[in-house]
């Protein structure tokens, strides 16, 4: 039996080693900071989200008053984050008309409630993807919006955060790889400065991505906290069950 299991494990490891890297569009993803436990970061992210994203994107499953979970009071939410017509129990709906959006951008801006969960892949988590995506915009006059993106080539969305980031140009170098020349991404050249330095911008995007990650599953921190207690209980329970079993079975010869 043990032999069978060993063979099984050995064969699995061979499979994992062989896992092919299916070639998806876009560059490799950077690792996003995980601040889903950091309330200041989440609040900053929420502010960025409401001010910059919510104009075109909805978060139609997320209620404003759920923001109480990241340390905001109902009054703070009403004063700073709500559109005037909304109620605090409403979900985050954008004001854009989907039909017009389709005309303007060629695509409907997707709902962002669970976007961080849906974009995961073999290159990293959904948060990694968004973190990379929002930091790799560059000017491209051949595109209708004037913008293009390294993580999502030919994306329909323009760089709405350009005022913060400024505009940048990617630098490529030709490199010999696998017998043919390939363009390899070699970093950025700042063309016009934004309101933020690169470090500040990266941090702001880190906050925004943490917020998106939290919003995709607001129960996630509760989940882990409850989980610790459940597992501790079950460890004790397993110990008792083990001793009980031994006590009953000691008579069986």
């Amino acid at each position, binding site marked *: 039996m043990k*032999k*069978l299991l060993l*063979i*099984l494990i050995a*064969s*699995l490891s061979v*499979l994992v080693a062989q*896992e*092919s890297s*299916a070639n998806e569009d876009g560059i490799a993803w950077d690792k996003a900071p995980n601040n889903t436990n950091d309330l200041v970061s989440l609040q900053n992210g929420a502010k960025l989200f409401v001010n910059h994203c919510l104009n075109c994107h909805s978060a*139609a*499953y*997320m*209620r404003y008053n*759920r923001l109480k979970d990241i340390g905001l009071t109902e009054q703070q939410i009403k004063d700073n984050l709500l559109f005037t017509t909304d109620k605090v129990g409403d979900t985050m709906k954008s004001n854009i008309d989907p039909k017009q959006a389709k005309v303007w951008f060629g695509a409907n801006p*997707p*709902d962002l*409630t*669970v*976007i961080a*969960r*849906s*974009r*995961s*892949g073999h290159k990293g988590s*959904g948060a990694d993807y968004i973190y990379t995506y929002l930091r790799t915009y560059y000017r491209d006059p051949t595109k209708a919006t004037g913008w293009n993106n390294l993580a999502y080539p030919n994306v329909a969305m323009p760089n709405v955060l350009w005022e913060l980031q400024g505009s940048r140009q990617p630098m490529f170098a030709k490199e010999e790889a696998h017998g043919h020349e390939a363009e390899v991404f070699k970093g950025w050249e700042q063309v016009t400065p934004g309101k933020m330095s690169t470090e500040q911008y990266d941090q702001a995007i880190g906050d925004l991505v943490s917020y998106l990650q939290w919003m*995709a*599953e*607001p*129960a996630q921190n509760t*989940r*882990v906290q*409850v*989980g*610790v207690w*459940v*597992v501790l209980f*079950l*460890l004790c*329970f*397993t110990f008792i*069950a*083990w001793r*009980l*079993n*031994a006590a*009953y*079975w*000691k008579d*069986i*010869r």
Partner: protein
Amino acid sequence: MAEFKEVSPDAGNGEKLLNWVDNRFPLSKLYKEHLSEYYAPKNFNFFYFFGALSILVLVIQIVTGIFLVMHYKPDASLAFASVEYIMRDVPWGWLIRYMHSTGASAFFIVVYLHMFRGLIYGSYRKPRELVWIFGCAIFLCLMAEAFMGYLLPWGQMSYWGAQVIVNLFAAVPFIGPDLALLIRGDYVVGDATLNRFFSFHVIAVPLVLLGLVVAHIIALHEVGSNNPDGVEIKATKGADGHPLDGIPFHPYYTIHDILGVSVFLLVFTSIIFFAPEVGGYFLEYNNFIPADPLKTPLHIAPVWYFTPYYSMLRATTDVMINVLSIISALSAAYVVFKTSVQNKFKLVTAVGAAVLIVLLNIFDAKFWGVVVMGGAVIMLFFLPWLDHSPVKSIRYRPNWHKWLYAVFVVFFVILGYLGIQPPSEIGTLIAQVGTIYYFGFFLLMPVWTQLGEFKVVPDRVTFVPH
């Protein structure tokens, strides 16, 4: 009918109540037959936890399912939002939903291990054929249940997974397109499909499933449990008429199973609370995007528990059809020229093979893929009559038999892995070899299970006191 029993007037109230019930319903009798005086072999090992665990998971699925239905909306325009509503606004809804989604995968893990146990210890052999057949029917129901349940969250994978699988039925010759239409209730997967799958998932299939589980257990308790040695414990009874190697299910195995349950729950809750998506295997990432009939995902893969069979489906290409034709021809030639069976049987074999080869090449490979996928599951039903080994348990079989089983398991896992991956040339080739091995393993059982040096099966079970 049993005689009306009286208890002494000074008996306790509990005893009086039990007597009252026993005179009207066989409560004590059932308790004795199925628990306190159901004698199970004392040498059960690790693999014998998974029967009890599958009942536990079944109960978890039913109970969490009841609560999910209270908040879920089976409507194409509301379904996705209602699942997110459960995840966010329903108190502890996320826990219920994760229990149900993790439970689906857990069900297949415990059932696959439960079936593997039956396979290696010969638990399907006489007199347990019906136990095995009921079990196979449960497995089929479980697949239907999981497939239809997966549509309900109405995400991209729900939608396109259902679309792909239902389209398979369209490959059936003559009736295919009508059959697919009947299943979908529409020309594409849509609201009608969601509603009927919901109905099947929450009532029709679970009803059948529960009935089969009861039949499975009644049949098992009629013949008694097998054990890792494959020894019939009823053959050696003590003075009291009970098997010498048997112990009452309660308290010994109830206590034992509580230990198994607590270890299982440790793993189960760790997944629920710390990694409910399990890297996209239990909850696929794409399924957090609402279903969009206009946007086909690049890569559509079923959930992991279907992928061994899905691999077999994909492995059935035109090349595979040629290989299968050649295998049929060679097998028929072998029977006709190299064996000494009756001429009538030789004729039947030759004609049968010829017809099969013609059919293989007339119908689309896609249809044969469906046949292969379905056949891989249906074949399990015939296992009791395929295995001709003189001993039940793998313990007393020749060593090379163990290798055949090991390779079988390895191929099953590889097929499962390949089914998750996008198709590739080398992957398809490996899957084809795996598929042929899977079928060869079962179909050639009447031959290979009889070959080799078998060890002597002891009269009594081997047992090491704990």
